[in-house]
């Protein structure tokens, strides 16, 4: 048992007793520490799973976002987004039957409270007011510099919040604990207000409303997600979608994108504390960042190349190339760096390959920037932290993250910073939760969610995975060694995860210690293969994208698109995906897709179409 200490005792019996107690205690301690370590390991790899999938998805979403931006640029309806407040009022009627908030511009605290009440009750804001709000927000933001300089004079404490990601409950929690924004209660929201959570629009509306009421005390910094509006579309509840987006959806989205591009890039407090969303690089130039026209940077990656190839292929008609509206390489690079970078402990600055944008910056980079601009602290967000915040680079870099339970109920706390005039940060943590926390079960919920997300991804890549498995299974036994299986998983899914550690949750072992690889695709609880695997697999992979595209083409949100609309959009989509298109074949295809021959394509016909083309293409 490894008991090394001797216990001074008088009688032999007593000594025996002492030794026994000692051994027992030691054994329990040993066991306890081992158990806690294994729980910690599981917590870590859950986070790994979520992060890998999240960042991998983000890259795919970036591409789709570019595609939609291009499509919107060519739509003539966009002129609507430049109406004045009065024109919106004249053109859009709000019926008497609407009981939601009715905003009056200029906004007052009463309007803000009405909005908060409405959203707490899950009510909606009418499209006219959304448009007016966005219009006014854009007007106000345009007048702001790229970097806002604040001061804590008048002994004001400034509250800094991190990513909210559409989680309204967390914003309400912050307001509950810390009070609503006002001249006496200034706030900085550090980007990523949208995506993932269910209430992105509500959060934006609330933040913009307070911005209009207290423009000198409510500050918004742009995050890397203030760009992906199209991706949020399916997550907006279907009622909201029908009601709000029926006629005005695309205008709202276009205006939103414009507003996002006008969000300031950074805030500086007392000339000493720099607040921005992602991080810095070794070339970050705050003077440059403060001067260029920030709204030019609208897409973040692979801008020029993709857009120009789409424009060539689509041939949508003569279109003025306004290249002065495109950002220069430096403008684009500098913005990307501050919105996407992450700090790390190693010195130096290397490209951030996990994210596909920005860089990893070390403590020496931070020190250099601080010296150059006489700074004391960098507050950033962008990364989920278990405690809601994290301090790095010897106290110089603080990460603040305000969306609790970001990945799953129980995954992390949220936090905000109170910065006093001495510029010493105070951290307030919270967690929005609906049942009491208890250590082991909580891990199970988070782990369950992580594994579910991972299994979905596995399922969506079934064809490629089976190909990889079978190519390693030379005897056709249906089994692979653990390491062959792990290799295949990693190379197809492109996720760096501890596959051997996860193996028990993902695949079955046969008696000879090898993995039965088809068991990856079974629901391990039910142990039964799902019917029609290939259609389901395709749907899993492209479902979100296809739903977005369908909704976009379906202008009147009737659930049907005409064959010409389909054809037109299909060509653009194929160009984006890099698939060859053949006009005649597409028309024929469109007619085949219209299964019930009513001249229109509904969503299930649409999915079927995509599935067919995807498989045809694979066969080439």
């Amino acid at each position, binding site marked *: 048992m490894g008991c090394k200490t001797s216990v001074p005792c008088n009688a032999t019996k007593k000594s025996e007793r002492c030794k026994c*107690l000692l*051994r027992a205690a030691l054994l329990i301690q040993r066991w306890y520490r081992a158990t806690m*370590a294994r729980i910690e390991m599981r917590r870590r790899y859950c986070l790994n799973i979520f992060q890998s999938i999240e960042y991998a998805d983000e890259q795919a979403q970036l591409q789709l976002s570019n595609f939609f931006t291009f499509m919107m640029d060519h739509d003539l309806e966009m002129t609507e987004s430049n109406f004045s407040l009065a024109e919106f009022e004249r053109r859009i009627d709000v019926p008497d039957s609407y009981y939601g908030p009715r905003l009056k511009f200029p906004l007052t605290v009463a309007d803000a409270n009405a909005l908060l009440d409405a959203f707490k009750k899950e009510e909606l804001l009418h499209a006219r007011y959304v448009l007016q709000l966005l219009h006014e927000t854009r007007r106000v933001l345009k007048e702001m510099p790229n970097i806002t300089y604040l001061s804590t004079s008048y002994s004001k404490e400034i509250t800094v919040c991190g990513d909210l990601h559409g989680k309204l409950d967390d914003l309400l929690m912050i307001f509950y604990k810390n009070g609503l924004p006002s001249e006496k209660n200034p706030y900085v929201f550090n980007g990523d207000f949208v995506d993932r959570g269910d209430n992105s629009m509500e959060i934006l509306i609330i933040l913009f409303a307070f911005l209009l009421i207290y423009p000198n005390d409510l500050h918004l910094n742009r995050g890397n997600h203030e760009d992906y509006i199209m991706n949020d579309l399916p997550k907006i509840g279907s009622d909201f979608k029908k009601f709000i987006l029926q006629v005005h959806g695309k205008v709202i989205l276009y205006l939103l994108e414009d507003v996002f591009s006008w969000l300031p890039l950074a805030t500086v407090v007392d000339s000493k504390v720099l607040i921005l969303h992602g991080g810095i690089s070794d070339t970050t130039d705050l003077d440059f960042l403060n001067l260029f026209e920030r709204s030019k940077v609208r897409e973040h990656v692979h801008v020029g190349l993709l857009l120009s190839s789409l424009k060539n292929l689509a041939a949508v008609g003569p279109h003025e190339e306004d290249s002065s509206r495109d950002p220069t390489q430096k403008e684009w690079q500098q913005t990307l760096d501050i919105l996407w970078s992450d700090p790390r402990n*190693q010195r130096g600055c290397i490209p951030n390959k996990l994210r596909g944008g920005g860089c990893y910056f070390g403590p020496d980079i931070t020190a250099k920037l601080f010296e150059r601009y006489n700074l004391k602290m960098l507050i950033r967000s962008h990364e989920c932290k278990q405690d809601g915040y994290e301090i790095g680079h010897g106290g110089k870099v603080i990460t603040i993250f305000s969306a609790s339970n970001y990945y799953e109920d129980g995954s992390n706390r949220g936090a905000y910073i109170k910065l006093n005039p001495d510029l010493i940060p105070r951290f307030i943590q919270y967690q929005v939760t609906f049942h009491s926390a208890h250590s082991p079960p909580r891990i199970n919920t988070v782990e369950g969610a992580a594994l579910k997300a991972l299994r979905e991804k596995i399922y969506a890549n079934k064809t490629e995975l089976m190909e990889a498995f079978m190519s390693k299974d030379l005897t056709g036994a249906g089994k692979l060694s653990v390491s062959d299986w792990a290799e295949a998983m990693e190379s197809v899914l492109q996720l760096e995860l*501890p596959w051997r550690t996860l193996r028990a949750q993902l695949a079955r072992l046969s008696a000879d210690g090898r993995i039965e690889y088809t068991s990856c695709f079974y629901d391990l609880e039910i142990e039964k293969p799902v019917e029609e695997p290939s259609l389901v697999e395709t749907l899993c992979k492209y479902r979100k994208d296809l739903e977005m595209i369908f909704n976009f083409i379906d202008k009147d949100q009737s659930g049907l698109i005409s064959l010409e609309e389909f054809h037109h959009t299909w060509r653009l989509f194929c160009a984006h995906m890099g698939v060859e298109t053949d006009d005649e074949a597409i028309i024929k295809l469109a007619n085949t897709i219209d299964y019930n021959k009513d001249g229109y394509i509904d969503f299930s016909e649409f999915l079927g179409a995509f599935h067919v083309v995807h498989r045809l293409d694979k066969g080439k």
Partner: protein
Amino acid sequence: MGLIAEIEKKITEAFEVFDHECNQTVDVREIGSIVRSLGCYPTEAQLHELLAEVEEEEPTGYIHLQKFLPVMTRVLVERSYQPTPEDVLLHAFEALDVNKCGYLTKEELVKYMTEEGEPFTQEEMEDMLSAALDPETNTMRYKDYITLMIVDDV
């Protein structure tokens, strides 16, 4: 792939979960978690011996995978630090339960865990109490506790 190579891969995977900067090093304070998550149950003393083998001559606070891998491989091959079977664990609790009532009082638990063997830190003690104690009676029903804490083997 041979057994040794397979073991090395498993160790590397576990190591990488804690390797935040993807540079083949981990904070020395995480080594305990890594070793234990690989299915080993060392005492603190044994862990310190292990650390001495994998640390640099001039301790930097970081452990390199290069040094860790051969040592850990040997540990796994030799099956050192075997886990505690559930029944042995139960006997250990029963040994502390002098009155044989099926539970330990908070005072008893704190006394044994912080004064005997390799004492818990205050944090460890608080963590255990928060999960183990029944708040109404302030006692730990150890049989139930063991069932609650059994972590599935992966």
